[in-house]
Structures are given as structure tokens and as C-alpha cells.
């Protein structure tokens, strides 16, 4: 498969169809891969794709990287789950479809360290939904490895209020505010994050219980109905705070209220950006 990947990247760059190709290259540690942003056909020989390619490269399509809005599109290797992030970016007008050349990768699941990545357990899309080119054989769609993707969320919902508070305070206590969760997230693209605003300071930047709680809860609210579950926040967190549980909880709420799943349809309007007469009003009492 790596051969096909190199060929397509080489062709796109040598024919001048794209401004850059964003993909994976061999990492410096076992089980890790690096991002490679190639601008010349010569660099294309370094591209790879294997089970360690857990990273979601859609993050490089956000404006701050300066790879989009060129005279030619940026090409990017994306797994089916990563394409959901592109869908969300298009929905939110952060990216124009014509600015990205999607090289879709069929995927049987990837590893995070030695084990299958958490996001792959509940995955039900193994082939790219849409693409400009595709690499690899179509793989058979299969049922998710776990029956209920919200099982872990429900475990926490079933705790008492006190237990839940203790659980999260213990988790947040580990946070040192490095913002790797935010930086790894393709949907945390705000030019100025609310946590960096100082006049007024909405969220205390200090790593103390109030600061950490405010940061993680507000981030989860900002991702409600937007997070596509790529799991990069979890992966980036060296303190192992299970951040995606917060996002999944919000995802579950949104699904129950509006029957909406993020990242599935570029034409759909995210529920928190539109109003419908028949919207559930259950939460207004």
C-alpha cells in the first residue's frame, strides 16, 4: 500500500496539481509515525501508511498552518474517520471542498501504542465516504467491535453526583494546561481561544482545580455537536485524562435531542447553529 501512496503523491506533486501533500512518514520511535508535508515530488518517496497511522491529519487543514487557500488545493491522506473532520470543517466554512484534495484510505483500524485505538472499537466506517483519489482495496464494512459506543459514558452517568465529581476532579488534577488536547484537535481552530482571552479572563489559566475544571468543561461545550470522535485529544494527553468521554457525553446529548451525528454530511447544518420549530424543548423547563 505504501507504494501506491508514494506513487499518487509523486504524481500529484510532479504534475503540479496540488500545492502540498500531507501524509505519514516513518517515526523515530517504535509504533509512532511522523507527519510529512511534501512540497516536491522528491519527498514523496518517504510517505507510508500502516497500522500506526493513528494521527488525524485533518488538523493541518486549519487556517493557522497556511497550507490551504493557495492557488492549488492541498492534498491530504485521510482515513474514513479523519474525513469526518474535513466534513465538519467544510460545514463550518473553515475549508472549501475545492481547497482540499482528499486521498482516501480504506482502513481496518489503527493502533495507539500496542493496542487498537479506542476510536476504532466503535468504528462503523471503514471506507472513505468521499474522496478525490483512493488508495487501497475497498474493505468489507463490518459492525463496530463494541455494541454500544456510549457504554463508558453511561458508566459515568450511572455514578452518583458525588462519585462523578470525584472522578473528574481526580482526572483534572493531572492537567498541567499544556493545551495538547486543543492543539491536536482539528476543530479547535479558533484564532483566539477563549482560554487565552484576558480582558476579561473568562477561564483562569492557572492549573488549579477551578482553572482546570473550567477549561475542560468549556472546551467540551464548545465541541458539542461538532466533535467527530477522532480521539486526538485523548492521544495527545500524556497525563491520560479521558477527555473524549466528555466529548462523547456531549455527542450523546446532541444525538438524543436532535438526532444529529457530527461529520456525516457536508450539507447538514449543525444543530447548535440553526433553529427549527420542531426542535426539542425538553431542556427548557
Amino acid at each position: 500500500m505504501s507504494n501506491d501512496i508514494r506513487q499518487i503523491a509523486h504524481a500529484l506533486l510532479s504534475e503540479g496539481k496540488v500545492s502540498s501533500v500531507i501524509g505519514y512518514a516513518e517515526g523515530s520511535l517504535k509504533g509512532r509515525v511522523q507527519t510529512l508535508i511534501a512540497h516536491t515530488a522528491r519527498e514523496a518517496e518517504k510517505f507510508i501508511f500502516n497500522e500506526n497511522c493513528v494521527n488525524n491529519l485533518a488538523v493541518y487543514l486549519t487556517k493557522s498552518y497556511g497550507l490551504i487557500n493557495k492557488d492549488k488545493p492541498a492534498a491530504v491522506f485521510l482515513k474514513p474517520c479523519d474525513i469526518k473532520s474535513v466534513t465538519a470543517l467544510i460545514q463550518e466554512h473553515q475549508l472549501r471542498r475545492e481547497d482540499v484534495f482528499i486521498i482516501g484510505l480504506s482502513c481496518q483500524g489503527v493502533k495507539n501504542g500496542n493496542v487498537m485505538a479506542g476510536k476504532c472499537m466503535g468504528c462503523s466506517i471503514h471506507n472513505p465516504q468521499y474522496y478525490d483519489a483512493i488508495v487501497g482495496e475497498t474493505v468489507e464494512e463490518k459492525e463496530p467491535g463494541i455494541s454500544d459506543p456510549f457504554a463508558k459514558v453511561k458508566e459515568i452517568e450511572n455514578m452518583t453526583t458525588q462519585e462523578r465529581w470525584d472522578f473528574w476532579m481526580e482526572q483534572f488534577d493531572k492537567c498541567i494546561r499544556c493545551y495538547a488536547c486543543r492543539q491536536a484537535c482539528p476543530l479547535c481552530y479558533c484564532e483566539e481561544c477563549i482560554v487565552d482571552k484576558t480582558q476579561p479572563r473568562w477561564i483562569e489559566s492557572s492549573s488549579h482545580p477551578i482553572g482546570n475544571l473550567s477549561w475542560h468543561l468549556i472546551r467540551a461545550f464548545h465541541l458539542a455537536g461538532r466533535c467527530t470522535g477522532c480521539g486526538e485529544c485523548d492521544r495527545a494527553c500524556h497525563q491520560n485524562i479521558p477527555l473524549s468521554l466528555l466529548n462523547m457525553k456531549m455527542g450523546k446529548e446532541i444525538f438524543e435531542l436532535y438526532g444529529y451525528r457530527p461529520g456525516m454530511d457536508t450539507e447538514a447544518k449543525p444543530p447548535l447553529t440553526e433553529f427549527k420549530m420542531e426542535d426539542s424543548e425538553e431542556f427548557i423547563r
Partner: protein
Amino acid sequence: MTPGMKKYKLKTGYTELVQCLLQKGKNVIAPKYSGRTLLFAKIDNAADAVLPDKYVNTVRSAKEFMFPVTEPIVEFSYGNKDVKVFDPVVEADEKIIVGLRPCDAAAFTVIDDIFNYEYKDEFYFTRRRNAVLITFACETSDEACFCTSVGLSPESPQGSDILFKKNSSGTYIAYTNSEKGEMVIRQAEELFEELTESEEENNSIYEEVSRSMRKPLDTVKIKEWLDKNFESTKWDEYASRCLGCASCAFLCPTCHCFDIVDEVKYEGGLRRKNWDACQFPLFTLHASGHNPRDIQSKRYRQRVMHKFKYYSDRFNKTLCTGCGRCVRSCPVNLDIYQVVSEITMEGVENE
């Protein structure tokens, strides 16, 4: 070993040592699991202290015990016209930090210089004076470790009050390196005894660990390249994949930059010193709106320059102890060892 070091044989294992210190009423900090994250934490039960041969290193370094993630540096209150300013009390209790690795103990000797440069940071030094550093030489390493590249080794005594090494029969030998270290030995004297000559024999395991590590870097050559390449397209290339988070800086035992923030409530408030990182755009944002490091390549350059050039220009030390945390934690595997070895190979003359 350093001249003046004394040697003692530990009659028991690690857990008994921790237990003994706890029984003497000591405040013991050691690697302990919080879920699946290995962190330095206060030990209440000796069994919670993870055995030194069961880990390569902790996720976070021990720097937070001298330079906390966040700490108040001024407190103030105001009534009608009455403003009062207080100096916060720095906790001055003795801490015995056990289970450090040589890279982390050495890191303090590196950052002591900056915390004592032009201004002596008493917040840092009060804690530093009251901390005893008890290090265990590394019996294993992982692919990210590169201490031998920056003048250290799995058995370096630099910065440790006591360094423990196993002899070839697996007994721990304590090498004291300071009066503070001697004091701990005296306080736990029932666990220690004199060494006989045959027991002193060195264990080759530490040399094997050294040999298994990444090939040592040429820090002189790195600096030569950095001296001439403030402007280089290499910076754009490396930084293009950097996500701009602070995993590297926050886990680093030698990164020491901080931000000052005021947290004000109606009747008063406090001023805090919080960890900060050069990879954040806000780090050098001026009040005018101008930012001298407005793009990631300038920020990544700063990180490498500070570690391998600026700190060396000012203090003749490398601001890196090769602990490998930045390599392990980077979400996109941007590997500083790889970066600086690549620029060395590039050769000064080619640029």
C-alpha cells in the same frame, strides 16, 4: 565517582527504605501511579512507591517540586481605601524525593543558574534547600532516552544527594554526594552498613544501558550550526508539523519559563506564577499587538536555540538532560534528538 562521596550498603530493598523514611515522619515524594500515569506524588503508604526497576521514568519530571505548575507570588486585599499586600509563605517543609533518575536530578543543577541569574528566585531556592534528591541509577532505558548525548549517563551522580546503584549481586549501594544525603543515611542508619571491598564491585549493567542508547550527539557541532543558522529554511521544515502545544516544554525537567497572571476577586486577589512555553503564540505577544515570534517556525527555533545555544552562551551548559520526555510525548513525533542530529550531519559548511 565524585571525590568525597561516601558509600553504604542498603541491607533491605527499596520499599523498606521508603517505609523507614515514612516512619521517621519524613515527607516522601516518589513515583506512584495515578490511574495509568506514573507521577511523582506524596507517598503515604510505602507499597504505593513503584520500585525503581519497574519504570524507565515518570511522565512528568520532578521540577514541579521546586517550580510548581502554579503558585501565588503576591497576595493582596483592598477595603475602602486600604490596600494590603502580603508575601505568600513558601512551604518550607523538608521533602525527600526518592526514585529520581540521574537526568532529572542533574536538571536542577542546570536550572539553578537561571533561577539565580540577576535575581535570586527565593520561591525556587527555598524549596530547593529543603529538598533531598535520592536518585536510582537506570537499569533500563527506552528508545527516547539520550542522556549520554548531553554529558550524562545512567549512573551520573550530578545533582543527587544520594545515588543508589546496584552492585553485581543486586544489592543497592548508596553513594552520598552532599551533607543532606549523609543526614538521610544517619536518620535511616538501621538500614545501612559499611561496605566490604568485595561488595563494592561495579555492575556492568549501567554501561550496557549507556551503550543501548541513541548514539551520542555532538553538542559542539550542533552549537556551531546554530551559531550560523538563525535564518534557515530548516526551521520552516521542522516546525511545519509542530502542533504548537506545550507537551515538550511542560514535561521537560529544564524548561523553566513562566507567565505572571493576576486572579482578582471583589475584595482582593493574588498574582500567580504559571508554567508557560515558547511554543505558544501568546508567549511573546506584546501589548502593542506586535509578536516577534509570530509563526511556529520562529517558536520552534527558539526552543532548539535556547536548549543548545543560548543557555550554553550564557551558562556554558546545555539546557537538556536527555530524559526523552519531549520525544515520548510529542503527538506528532517531532523528535528534538533527530532534529539536532540532522543539522549536525548537514555540516556547517553546507549552509
